[in-house]
């Protein structure tokens, strides 16, 4: 019987990778853990000492190497921080905006976020990856998995309109998506809600006021005032804004393509001025998640703009005095750790400016002191000029 390969015994500790794993590096990682430290150090030094034409190459190969050589996952390595450092490093360098490697880093970062759409919108507004099919495919996939296949379709169509490369990939993805929608194999919530029996419980749907402070715990049948949340029935769900408290009037005649254009425009204008880095976005979201949004009595106030009125809204106005219970279904607080890391990365105070190269010190998975940064550079210079130990320094 042949001896078992090293990975066979460690199989359950190996996280699968999307692109598959390289057997050679996997074996290396499992058999020589002490070499890993050394190699990692090399990469960390490279990050700080590289002075060539393509600094992203070092980051890219380091990230790939880390994934391949830490088969049980990168939990101890602060991957989100590392990706964020990489993103911040190249943000000023516009030549990388549509570099597939840079786009991959952004997408990987997005995948680790609680709200990846924030990152996607930021990328789109910044122009990062707007010519890369991978970006649109990943973004569409996110929406498809959240049950918004129509939005997913829009995004793929947008990618095709932007002439993202490779074009064929995008077209295939779109074709397959449409096929899935047609087969109903995608988790299409819009379709589900239309097909669902009328008497199902619906998030944020209006309940008949009971007069007491408690909300009725039976939220179907006669207790329910409206079938759909908001005033404009039917449209809210179609727009994909399933959980929005307020319905926005949408012209049914307008093409979905136009709407997607408007949506992305709105997204970009809100982020465009604070676009220096996406963490501004994520941070803002975090703050909101912690804070209580002052809730208005939904029943007592109509939208500030004119909407198409129908019979439902009149019945709503009659119930002005009723008490609506808020916070019954509060969102679960997100306790992800990388937010604190973003705080570290940001200045200690908005009015303070670091007069040293922060990303060189804290850039990789571990910190470096100035002498280490200089030594990394020195070592490479010595190696380039031949024998490191016998060269007299001039």
């Amino acid at each position, binding site marked *: 019987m042949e001896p078992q390969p090293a990975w066979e015994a460690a199989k359950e500790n190996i996280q699968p990778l999307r692109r598959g794993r390289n057997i050679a590096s996997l074996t290396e990682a499992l058999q020589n853990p002490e070499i890993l430290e050394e190699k990692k150090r090399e990469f960390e030094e490279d990050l700080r000492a590289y002075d060539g034409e393509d600094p992203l190459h070092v980051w890219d190969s380091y990230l790939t190497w880390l994934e391949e050589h830490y088969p049980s996952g990168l939990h101890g390595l602060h991957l989100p921080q590392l990706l964020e450092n990489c993103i911040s490093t190249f943000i000023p360098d516009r030549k990388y905006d549509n570099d597939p490697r840079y786009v991959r880093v952004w997408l990987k970062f997005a995948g680790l976020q609680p709200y990846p759409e924030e990152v996607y919108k930021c990328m789109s507004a910044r122009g990062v990856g707007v010519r890369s099919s991978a970006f649109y495919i990943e973004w569409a996939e996110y929406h498809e998995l959240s049950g918004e296949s129509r939005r997913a379709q829009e995004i793929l169509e947008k990618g095709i309109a932007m002439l993202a490369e490779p074009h064929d990939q995008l077209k295939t993805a779109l074709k397959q998506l449409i096929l899935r929608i047609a087969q109903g194999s995608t988790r299409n919530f819009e379709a589900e809600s239309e097909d669902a029996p009328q008497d199902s419980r619906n998030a944020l749907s209006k309940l008949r006021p009971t007069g007491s402070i408690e909300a009725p715990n039976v939220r179907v049948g006669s207790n329910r005032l409206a079938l759909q949340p908001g005033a404009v029935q039917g449209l809210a769900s179609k727009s994909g804004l399933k959980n929005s408290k307020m319905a926005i009037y949408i012209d049914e005649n307008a093409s979905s393509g136009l709407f997607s254009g408007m949506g992305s425009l709105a997204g970009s204008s809100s982020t465009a001025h604070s676009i220096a880095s996406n963490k501004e976005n994520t941070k803002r979201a975090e703050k909101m998640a912690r804070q209580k949004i002052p809730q208005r009595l939904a029943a007592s106030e109509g939208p500030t703009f004119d909407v198409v009125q129908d019979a439902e809204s009149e019945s709503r106005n009659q119930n002005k005095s009723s008490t609506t219970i808020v916070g019954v279904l509060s969102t679960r607080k997100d306790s992800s750790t990388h937010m604190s890391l973003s705080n570290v990365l940001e200045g200690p105070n908005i009015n303070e400016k670091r007069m040293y*190269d922060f990303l060189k010190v804290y850039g990789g998975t571990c910190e470096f002191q100035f002498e280490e940064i200089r030594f990394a550079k020195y070592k490479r210079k010595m190696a380039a000029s031949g024998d490191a130990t016998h060269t007299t*320094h001039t």
Partner: protein
Amino acid sequence: MFGAPSSLNNKSTFSFNNSFGGKTAGATNNPMKDFEVPSPPDDTVSGLAFSPISLTQNFLVSGSWDNQLRCWEVHHSGQSVPKAQQSHQGPVLDVAWSDDGSKVFSGSVDKTVKMWDLNSNQCVQIGQHDGPVKTVHWIKASNYQCVMTGSWDKTLKFWDTRSANPIMSITLAERVYCADVFYPMAVVSTANRGIFVYTLENQPRDYKAVESPLKYQHRCVSIFADKTKRDQPVGFGLGSIEGRVAINNVNTNNPKDNFTFKCHRTNSTNTNGYQDIYPVNDIAFHPVHGTLATVGSDGKFSFWDKDARTKLKTSEQMDNSITRCCFNARGEIFAYAVGYDWSKGHEYSNSQQKNYIFLHPSFEELKPRQTAKK
């Protein structure tokens, strides 16, 4: 002009003669009009130390990124004379004197620890690490004496100067970034803001790990003595890369004794609306007054009275960072080295820029405020 004539200070025999001031270089390089040390190192100074109190003369030793160890004799006139030079195979990161002033120890990125006998001008290797040697200190105990070295190989080693093997080795979780020794106390700080205090009596032993009072990377540490018993170490000053120094008493019951203060920052927000923050590169305590000096990447040095919690003085700005500083054993001379500290990476390094070591009269200026008022 200098404000430190020896006639006002009967403890000090060190005096500066203003006529030598004219010999210094242009005002932009030497804004404090201090005494310039001749034949300075060709690259950034990373180690700087004055001879111990056992020698009546003052000798200054530097280690630098040009692989060289240099020694000058500093005369009471303020003039200094190059005396000797030795070299490593790589940049030198730290230097230390033996207590009798006969030897100088040095650690280098070439991973070796060397001992330089100044009488015979012989330089021999006494230790070896697996990584660059970042800190070197001499320990003189009643029952032993040795050299303590801290390295990026995450170890602290103790060498008796005769054996090729260390008499003791302590493994740390992280790379050693800075250290100081003041018998019987040693303080070592590592990456990830670790601080470890050792007691050196009988043999080096763990004393305690201290939680960092700072938020960012530790850059320099220096032990200070008790206010009245000047031979008793009681705490340390710790500088960070983020313009802040922490004063930490090791055995205090009163949390108010420990505090941090901001330094090496622009005074107010500048025209861009930002306050600029610079790393603190070195801290030195005055051997007589117990006051301290800090030097930073902003190219300034500042004198502080930690007990009165006041600033005594801030210098003008040099044309480059100040990387290291030290007082002579009697506290009359403050030496500081001007050169690039690599805080902004290789993009800002300029091999054409000259490096300097300056000498500043310090006995009067570092007197605590109260006594100065009398």
